[in-house]
């Protein structure tokens, strides 16, 4: 592997622990079978076995193009917040990775591995019924998060994993924040819609409608409508939106 791991992970790879039971004593590695799974926008994702559990290591790597102090400050802050939010997310009944170990010096987080397929990769392959069911569950989870003042921050089809038992898991809370602002919550929905439009244009209607239905199941109607209106408003804020015309000089 060409990536140079941070010191604390390298150390962990050398450490062992002992299990003592009726069968005697077994020496086990704390961390082994580490392999690179993917590279995200701000982190490397490794698969590994941590204390015998299939895990994912998310390491927020230093970015050479950023000033050091800003870089470390942001990496630490995000790693810490992500861990806290993951616990909260699990406690309100959303399927997400369980954090197992966190290191704020080198900014990595070890969490359980979810075996399954990325939603983004299977959108085109599955039937409409499954597509709707999954979109609806994502909508329901989004509603549940928002009800608990958690905003995912990067809710795209890439950040949903469908496990072997066809359960829907939400991953990557790396940009998640705790907030009461309606605006921030609406941006979650906006981002999800945008990811549909930019990668799954053909299934736009079914995915969006099922998402909204699921969302409405999780929150009260009044709140859901408020969110939907705010999403519309946010979209109008983009560049050069014709609907936002100020004078009637647009002739169609």
């Amino acid at each position, binding site marked *: 592997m060409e990536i140079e791991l941070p010191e604390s992970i390298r150390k962990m790879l050398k450490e062992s622990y002992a299990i003592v039971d009726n069968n005697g004593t077994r020496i086990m590695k704390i961390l082994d079978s580490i392999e690179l799974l*993917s*590279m*995200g*926008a*701000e982190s490397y994702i490794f698969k590994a076995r941590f204390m015998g559990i299939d895990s994912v290591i998310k390491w927020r790597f230093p*970015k*050479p*193009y*950023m*000033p050091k*102090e*800003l870089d470390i*400050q*942001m990496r630490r802050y995000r790693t810490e917040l992500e861990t806290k939010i993951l616990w909260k997310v699990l406690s309100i009944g959303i399927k997400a990775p369980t954090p197992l170990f966190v290191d704020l010096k080198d900014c990595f987080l070890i969490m359980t591995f979810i075996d399954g397929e990325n939603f983004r990769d299977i959108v085109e392959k599955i039937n409409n019924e499954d597509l709707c069911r999954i979109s609806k569950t994502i909508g329901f989870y989004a509603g549940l998060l928002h009800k608990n003042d958690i905003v995912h*921050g*990067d*809710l*795209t089809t*890439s950040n949903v994993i469908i496990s072997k038992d066809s359960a829907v898991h939400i991953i990557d809370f790396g*940009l998640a924040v705790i907030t009461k602002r309606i605006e*921030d919550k609406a*941006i*979650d929905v*906006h*981002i999800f819609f*945008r*990811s549909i*439009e*930019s*990668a799954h*244009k*053909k299934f736009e209607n079914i995915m969006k409608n099922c998402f909204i239905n699921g969302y409405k199941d999780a929150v009260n109607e009044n709140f859901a409508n408020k969110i939907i209106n705010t999403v519309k408003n*946010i979209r109008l*804020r*983009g*560049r*050069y*939106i*014709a609907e*936002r*015309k100020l004078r009637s*000089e*647009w*002739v169609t």
Partner: protein
Amino acid sequence: MIVVGIESSAHTFGVGVVTDNEENFILADERVQYIPKHGGIHPRESSRFLAEKAPQILKNAFAKSSLNPLNIDAVAVALGPGLGPCLRVGATIARTLSAYLNKPLVPVNHAVAHVEIGLKLTGLKDPVTVYLSGGNTAIIAYLDKRYRVFGETLDIALGNLLDTFAREAGLGPPYVVGGLHVVDRCAEEGKKILPDFPYVVKGQDIAFSGLLTTALRALKRGVDLNDICLTLREIAYNSVLEVSARCLMHTRKKEIMLVGGVAASPILKDKFIEMAKMYNASIGVVPPQYAVDNGVMIAWTGLLGFKAGLSIDLKSAIVKQRWRIDEVDILWR
């Protein structure tokens, strides 16, 4: 095939003449830029300036290309997005030219033109396009016949942020000196990153207005200007880099292209080169001359559109100040 392109969306009146020859496709590239004495671009003042200069620029373009105007195949014009009064200058001239010469008129979206001239000049095939200028901050990727906006600013553009701050801090205008933005220049002397400047990345979108307000407040409090410049620049640039990296991951494309006026910044370019290295992506930076507004990009995009059968009748050739890049069908891809 020869196409004349007219650009007048903000501060530049440009006339470009291009052919579909592989080599030396640019036959003429004439332009003039409105530079305000103080403050930002006032649409009315800019449009008056453009209208005044337009005939000469047009004349120069035909002279440079030693072309008989009757031998052109089409007239292309940027109908939007941009400042209304300015766009109208170009549109009026293009309609006149088209009617007088009896040549088809091809509508061009200014943002699409930035992407297309970039593709032509960098040789990239299917990049993530980072479009940074005074009025635009967008991360764009091609999918299903359209350039889709993957992420964009939710309030002001990167160039707007830098220019406004420079203006308030008394650093400009002019905003770009010797190829370097005055904020970049001022940041060189900066020593530390100031705390509590907002870094706003919302998934794929960015917002700069909070950063601008915080910077202006710090300025009022008498915080060291160089430190403010450094902090402002690093946060602004890095949020763009982060969103670009995310788009690269999401679309799984292997190329990055920088276009637009702000993309000419050597500091931003270096950061992107570092970033591309990390992701094994190749990077293409549009040469500064064509990264800023120009007539050649309009002519080139018009040529692509015209070849794909696109033209518009004069009555419908009305400017669209608001015309998103993702509303345009890309007929030639």
